[in-house]
């Protein structure tokens, strides 16, 4: 006999990967997000577009749990769990990854040590044994190779002396290692030349699957010609004012935000 109820639950879980309702966020006492609703299901790629100051990066950082970003109203659920009750590192354990607009330089901490500590922390959170140094080296070299990152950069200090493009590639290697359920990529395309944009896009596309979702935050259309979104949302003044298919991005590019909103 087939147990339909189990399948039903799985379907339902998939649907509810990220569910944001009536979200209000303040940073340093200033209201930035003012009533935002967003649903992202497994298998989907969403793009959030908007001008500087619209609150896009605040949304990304709030999902990741940055301490000084205060949720004053609304809910964020991830796979049915209240995300706001979790610390940033626990959110990563649950399967969320934030690609930074400006990856942070950390002098004195080697990239390899950083990535291995990161992967083993997430493995530990999920009840898995730590990966050995040898096993990890094999894995990280393969991922660096996929993303055309010079393996020498693994030995350097985290992001120190990296060009803009190298920092973003480094973010993509970290994402590939952690293989998150939901990747939130904050302006991952900014500061990239065309070759780097292509490589990074390939990295993002490799992350696409029926079980994973991607939230792209950008204010240019150009990334979206490499990574085709299923949905495009326009964000203005802390709210999503319009949602549509991938054509909406082209319309924005052509007519500007004022006309579309």
């Amino acid at each position, binding site marked *: 006999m087939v147990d339909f109820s189990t399948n039903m639950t799985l379907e339902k879980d998939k649907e509810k990967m990220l569910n944001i309702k009536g979200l209000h966020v303040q940073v340093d006492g200033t209201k930035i997000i003012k009533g935002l609703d967003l649903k992202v299901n497994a298998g989907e790629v969403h793009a959030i577009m908007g001008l500087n100051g619209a609150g896009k990066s605040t949304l990304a950082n709030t999902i*990741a*749990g*940055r*301490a000084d970003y205060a949720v004053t109203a609304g809910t964020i659920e991830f796979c049915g769990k209240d995300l706001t009750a979790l*610390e*940033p*590192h626990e959110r*990563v*354990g649950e399967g969320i990854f*934030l690609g*930074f607009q400006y*990856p*942070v330089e*950390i*002098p*004195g*901490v080697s990239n390899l*040590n*950083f*990535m291995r*500590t*990161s*992967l083993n*922390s*997430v493995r530990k*959170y999920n009840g898995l044994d730590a990966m050995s140094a040898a096993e990890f080296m094999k894995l990280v070299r393969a991922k660096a190779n996929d993303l055309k990152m010079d393996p020498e950069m693994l030995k350097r*200090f985290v992001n120190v002396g990296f060009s803009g493009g190298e920092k973003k590639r480094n973010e993509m290697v*970290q994402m590939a290692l*952690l293989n998150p359920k939901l990747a939130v990529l904050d302006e991952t395309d900014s500061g990239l030349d065309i070759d780097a944009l292509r490589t990074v896009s390939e990295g993002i596309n490799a992350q696409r699957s029926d079980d994973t979702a991607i939230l792209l935050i950008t204010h240019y259309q150009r990334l979206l010609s490499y990574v085709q979104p299923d949905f495009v949302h326009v964000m203005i003044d802390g709210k999503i004012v319009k949602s549509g298919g991938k054509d909406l991005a082209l319309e924005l590019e052509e007519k500007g935000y004022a006309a579309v909103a």
Partner: protein
Amino acid sequence: MKPDLLANYEDQVWELAGLMPGTEGLRMRALNAATEYGLPGKRDEKWRYSNMRALRDAIFSQPLAAKNMPSLPAAIAVETSASLVFVNGRFNEDLSDMGDLWQAAQVRPLANHLMSNMDRANELVPGDDAMTCLNTALMRDGMVLSVPAGVEIDDPVEIVHIMTDSDGAGTHLRHMIELGEGAAITLLERYVGDGSHYWTNSVLQARISEGARFQHIRLQEEGAAAQHTGKVFANIGTGASYRATTINIGGALSRFEANVRLLIDDASASIDGVALAGTGQSHDTYTEINHLMPTTTSDQIFRTIADSRGKTSFQGKVSVAKDAQKVTADQSFKALVFDNTAEANAKPELEILADDVKCSHGATVGALDDKAIFYLTSRGIDPITARQMLVEAFTADALQAIAHDDIKTALMERISDWMTERAHKPVLQEH
């Protein structure tokens, strides 16, 4: 008013002279000199960051032989070529392990050394302030180590100082190290103690001959109520090197001084250190590096961390003599503070009489970078580990001169443990 050290300590001088006949002249001269210098006060520029009131207000007695052993911080896990243990200022043969060091070098307690030939008293540095002169007047024991020319001792020699049940006692240790031409040694000095109110006042004097290498690791983990003053005098010959790494974690107040003389061409010294000041603690380092000849080099790297109401200080004086050309001298001091009740002081001082030299110094005070902590936690790393990684990175430069990896690892663990004990504390945000 400054206390009358002569009146306070003359009895002890005669008692010690009784134990080591022939030392009375040396001791009395030193006590008179100490009295002349007087215990330092706030107006002494060299001592401006340390409040020495606890030493001025009391007369410290000679410690008694130990009855009980305190529980000690974990050992620094290393293979040692010898381990010498001093309990309450006295050499303890039972706890010591002389290994096979005696086959390669001459090593003996100070008392035996002086008693064997009183002329040896002339080898003692008499002192250049009240603390070091008091040390000469009141020294009771120490290690005398002489490594013959060409002998390289790979495993570290360890000296452990233990203070126990010593309320009101002061211990004055004198260690003498002599390295022959091309000799090499690593010395690991540890200071530990129980919670009693005692004072450790130690002096180490080193003579490093041509081409010899002296690596000195000094880990100060005194009991919480202890006052600790320590000084190193190092004379460095042609192509010889002195590498010191000083770690200050324990005690209510600690003061470490290094007086280094780069005597002949190509002599080099590095004096590095890490100080961790918990609430109410003060760690003060004062270094004086004298470049007396051309092509001598020195390098100083200090990294300190201060918790709420903790205090770390560094004063580094570099002197370059006239005609000492092509000298290189670098100094770097960086402090982390937990909040705005923590204090970090830095004062570099350069006195350069030659014209072709490269000297640099830099000092910064800041907080752990909250952006870096968020970046690490946003990769799944818990905040305690994240802070440990950042502190490890922060202190790494100050430990780089240590050639023995196991010592370096053990010291990194000490630093990491210190951070873990304070894991619940918020760290000042940089805006």
